[in-house]
């Protein structure tokens, strides 16, 4: 117990927090783009699972983590393609299809895992970290933030890439218009369906990547239901962030710390159910909402399929 707040412990705790936050961050950023474009993507949990499974399969058979990330993202895109086809192109109910995709991918990945890996439970070797010189020598913060796999830094950079995209590019504006007033975008000569499809497919790629990170770097193996609600957390983060990518990052880190804390408590042998700690981030956010809850600024056309010529 004495070593609970030692430098090493805090460093490890923060390292774990960042590792746990990355999948949430990727899912949150992805969901944010879908929501901006007016698609409530509840299938994101399924996309993460597809990414986790295919990412693991890719990395396991090729021996390359990067190829694993690629196949993971491709897996997410494949699921997103179904979502885009059914919910954007022909306008089926997004909640029905989203939940159906999540259920289906939960079952399918668990099933495939059973036939492929359930006897051996193979593991990947630990991901080699890219240590950033100088910065990684800072006590506590150094080992926590600057000794990760390269993909972590890329994910962090993506936050600012997204910020730039939404603020300074035509595509970013188109995405927001597709969610706020799709008819206006259509009149301006931009294809709403195409814009929304881009958003949903990007969501799939990011969620798939998040899933692949979860399996390949976070756990080192694939187990059924590995995402364990991370996709739903991504939805919560995206909605709380009110369209700001940086807020998704802060939210993801907050949840990451709590997830990391549960593991640390178990290691330290502290005898309270992990459920108590798992409740913390939600409690914090609910209290924040109760205290500062204002009208949520969600896109006006969120969840409404766009069909030209209807009001």
């Amino acid at each position: 117990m004495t070593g609970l707040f030692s430098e090493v412990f805090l460093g490890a705790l923060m390292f774990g927090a960042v590792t746990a936050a990355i999948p949430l961050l990727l899912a949150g950023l992805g969901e944010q783009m879908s929501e901006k474009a007016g698609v409530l993507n509840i299938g994101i949990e399924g996309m993460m699972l597809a990414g986790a499974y295919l990412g693991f399969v890719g990395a396991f058979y090729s021996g390359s983590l990067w190829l694993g990330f690629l196949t993971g993202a491709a897996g997410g895109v494949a699921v997103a393609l179904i979502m885009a086809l059914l919910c954007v192109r022909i306008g089926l109910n997004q909640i029905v299809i989203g939940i159906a995709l999540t259920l289906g991918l939960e079952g399918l990945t668990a099933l495939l895992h059973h036939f492929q890996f359930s006897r051996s439970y193979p593991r990947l070797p630990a991901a080699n970290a890219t240590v950033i010189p100088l910065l990684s020598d800072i006590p506590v913060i150094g080992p926590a933030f600057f000794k990760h796999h390269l993909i972590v830094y890329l994910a962090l950079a993506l936050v600012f890439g997204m910020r730039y995209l939404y603020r300074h590019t035509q595509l970013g504006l188109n995405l927001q218009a597709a969610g706020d007033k799709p008819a206006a975008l259509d009149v301006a000569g931009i294809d709403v369906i195409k814009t929304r499809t881009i958003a949903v497919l990007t969501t799939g790629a990011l969620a798939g990547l998040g899933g692949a990170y979860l399996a390949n770097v976070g756990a080192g193996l694939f187990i059924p239901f590995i995402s364990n609600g991370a996709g739903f957390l991504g939805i919560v983060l995206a909605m709380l962030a009110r369209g700001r990518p940086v807020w998704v990052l802060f939210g993801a880190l907050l949840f990451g710390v709590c997830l990391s804390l549960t593991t640390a408590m178990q290691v330290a042998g502290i005898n309270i159910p992990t459920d108590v700690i798992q409740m913390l981030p939600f409690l914090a956010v609910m209290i924040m909402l109760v205290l500062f809850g204002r009208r949520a600024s969600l896109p006006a056309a969120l969840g409404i399929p766009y069909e030209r010529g209807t009001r």
Partner: protein
Amino acid sequence: MSIDTPSVNATAPDPTSAAAARRDILHRLLMTLGPILAALVIAGCILLAVGVDPLAYYGYVLEKGLFSPLGIQQTLTRMAPLLFLAAGLIVAFRAGMWNLGGDGQFLLGAVTAAASAPVFVQLMPAWLALICSFLIAAAVAMIWSLVPALLRGYQGVNEIITTLMMTFLGTSLANVLVKLVFRDPGTTVPQTRTLPVEDRLPRLFDTTITSGLLLGLAAIIIVHLVMTRTAFGLKLRIVGANPRAAIHAGLGVPGLTVAVFAISAGLAGLAGAVDIIGVQGNVRADWNPAYGLAVIPAVFLARMNGFAAIGFVFLLSVLSIGGESAARRLGVPNHFTLVLVSIVLIVLALAEYVDHRYNQSRKA
């Protein structure tokens, strides 16, 4: 997947109303059974791909879920909590509120019932004890939904986020309660005290079907009638159709919002209670059947119609009970049921779209 383009009411030359009604029912039946068949074929391909005989699998599903006396009784028993959940969702969705927190409300209702029922049966006659347990389970679930309800009603905070978060919180809280507060000291596994079988909800006649089924059916039919036939239901539907118009019509939207959440969550809590008091007898730690996730799309596909929802809940129950048995017998993990349910939902949604499109083009 458009194998099932409706061929039924293609030619409708001013039929008498009775014939039209019959045609309509036949059409709906075809539009439901056709997609289910198509879904079974698609899912069968997946089974083939992993080396399982689909015909054998479906044979077992039907045998256990539908045709064996014991199996159909289990199916009907499984329907009880699902019906309550569906009833709760119908109220919320018709009023335009996305209560996605059903699972948290369900679990808290279940834990409350599991904790209170064994105590109550020692204090009062069994029937009164069960009623009290039901009421307190519903009350706890209602209180749990109060935060999202107030936030949505008075602050306009989106209820999808709040109910999703409350469901994560509720699941954890239910576990904490089972492990720390209501844990049965007599067992090594963390679980609540078990309600003796003779004190549980009576079974129907000589079967193993729980009488909770009747309660569930009553709940969903009452909800359907209230939503479609009463002034209160009309008010809720107006709020759902256009909240701003509802304000202009003089409706107290915030109050109605809280009422909707209370009813919806209360019914989810009753679903938990009926599963515990009728079937399980206790709550084990980390028990979460996640019924809500499957019921939500089913309620949508039923177009929030209570009677159609009964049909879909029956279908879900057949698939889940039959699937469990088929998986066990063929040595496949039970996860395939999830895949099957998913494909059925997607194909049904697609069929509805095709049907809708077809009708539109016919009118035009």
